[in-house]
């Protein structure tokens, strides 16, 4: 139990939280976002150590950690109304295989080409896993919010039609208000969301 605590909380959570906050300052993240970015990094490190503890290999552990931290990033970005990369770029720092890239070049410069190549492929696979994790979460959230919005607009339209058919008095002139989700602003596909005359007009 003590060893588990050491690995998960101390090594994973604290060990990833401190570098995340440190790099958040280097990247000029400010205020509450800085603390939340640190927390995102801590959760990523925690998941990584948890996966290692459960016996997954390094790449899968990185993938799961990236998924966890980008889910947190998406939630925090919607809460704080900033871009997702404020949290993910900072939180990725502890997981990113910088040490591996350095070790690879050390092996190469020592003449140990085979070990260097193995390390290089490992570095590429780990960073590929990290970027895949982030990408899959952002794609799923985009799709989720897109379909949710579509559903909302179609149901509004249906309700309007029904209302028009039954009572032509007031519901036909009713303004439909759809809350604008500002945190989606980085997505190009969400353009029509910010364009009020497209969403409100049936």
């Amino acid at each position, binding site marked *: 139990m003590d060893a588990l605590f050491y690995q998960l909380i*101390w*090594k*994973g959570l*604290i*060990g*990833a*939280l*401190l*570098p*995340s*906050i*440190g*790099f*958040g*300052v*280097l*990247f*000029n*993240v*400010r205020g509450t976002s800085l603390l939340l970015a640190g927390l995102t990094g801590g959760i990523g*490190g925690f998941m990584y150590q948890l996966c290692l503890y459960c016996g997954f290999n390094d790449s899968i552990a990185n993938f799961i950690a990236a998924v966890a931290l980008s889910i947190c990033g998406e939630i925090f970005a919607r809460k704080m109304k*900033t*871009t997702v*990369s*404020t949290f993910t*770029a*900072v939180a*990725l*720092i*502890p997981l*990113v*295989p*910088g*040490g591996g*890239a*350095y*070790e*690879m*070049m*050390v092996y*190469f*410069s*020592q003449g140990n080409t085979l070990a260097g190549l193995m390390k290089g492929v490992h*570095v*590429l696979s780990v*960073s*590929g896993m*990290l*970027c895949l994790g*982030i*990408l899959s979460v952002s794609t799923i959230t985009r799709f989720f919010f897109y379909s949710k919005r579509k559903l909302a607009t179609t149901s509004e339209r249906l309700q309007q039609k029904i209302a028009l058919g039954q009572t032509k008095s007031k519901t036909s002139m009713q303004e439909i208000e759809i809350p604008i989700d*500002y945190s989606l*602003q*980085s997505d*190009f596909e969400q*353009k029509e969301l*910010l*364009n*009020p005359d497209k969403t409100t007009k049936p």
Partner: protein
Amino acid sequence: MEISTPTASELARTKAQEGVCAILRAGTLLMSSGAEVYRVEETMTRLGHAIPGVDSCIAYVTVTGIICSIEYQGQTVTRIARMKDSKRNLSIVNAINDLSRKSELHHYSAAEINEHLNQIDNLPNYSDFTTALWGAIGAAGFVIFFGGTLIEMVFVFGIGLITRYLSVLLDRLAINPFIVNASLSLIIAILSVIAHLIYPPCNVNTMIISSIMLLVPGLMITNALRDSVMGEPLSALVLLTESVLVACAIALGAIAGLFIMGY
């Protein structure tokens, strides 16, 4: 001598010029704050289309340069910007993203965009001392992440403080970034061996890797892969090559440091 009044086409041309300058400025600012290539392209196109009267706006962004072209009532103006170095400043990236979102709602003109960019340019930065301190704390955190001891943490905190401070100094001298990285990692290696000599149970490798995380381009590799997935393979290749070269410079510096100290 007579002063001719500007014709409609000349007016349109100046309008297009103003627009292209403002958008290019936004793109340059974004790119030098370390935004991803696809995000810069997207933001520039959105800003351009939001300017009232603009028929089409095309931005072509790579890591090393930006081309932007605007068509305003039949007059096309194209401009190029060259990108040199980039630092990460996520608050600028955030602010410009905010600006592009607002400009889609309010349709800002070129002058208004310029005004907002002036404000964004003056966003506050952390002082050198604060960044050095937090960089050192981050490096000390890496010792925990790599499973080191508390005494190694203290040493790495000191090494990180010195490294960050020196890197700020070297940035001002505008030396080649590869040389800067190599010399910084040389200093890190020398200091780590000295720390090991002071207190022998300290592991030199843990200390070097933890402090070197301040320099290594790990995020660059991940961003390069992300760019290549998002449809920017050209920039991804450039970034990947650059990150490998930076890692090479860092490793050479560290090996030279270890060699000098006879470790």
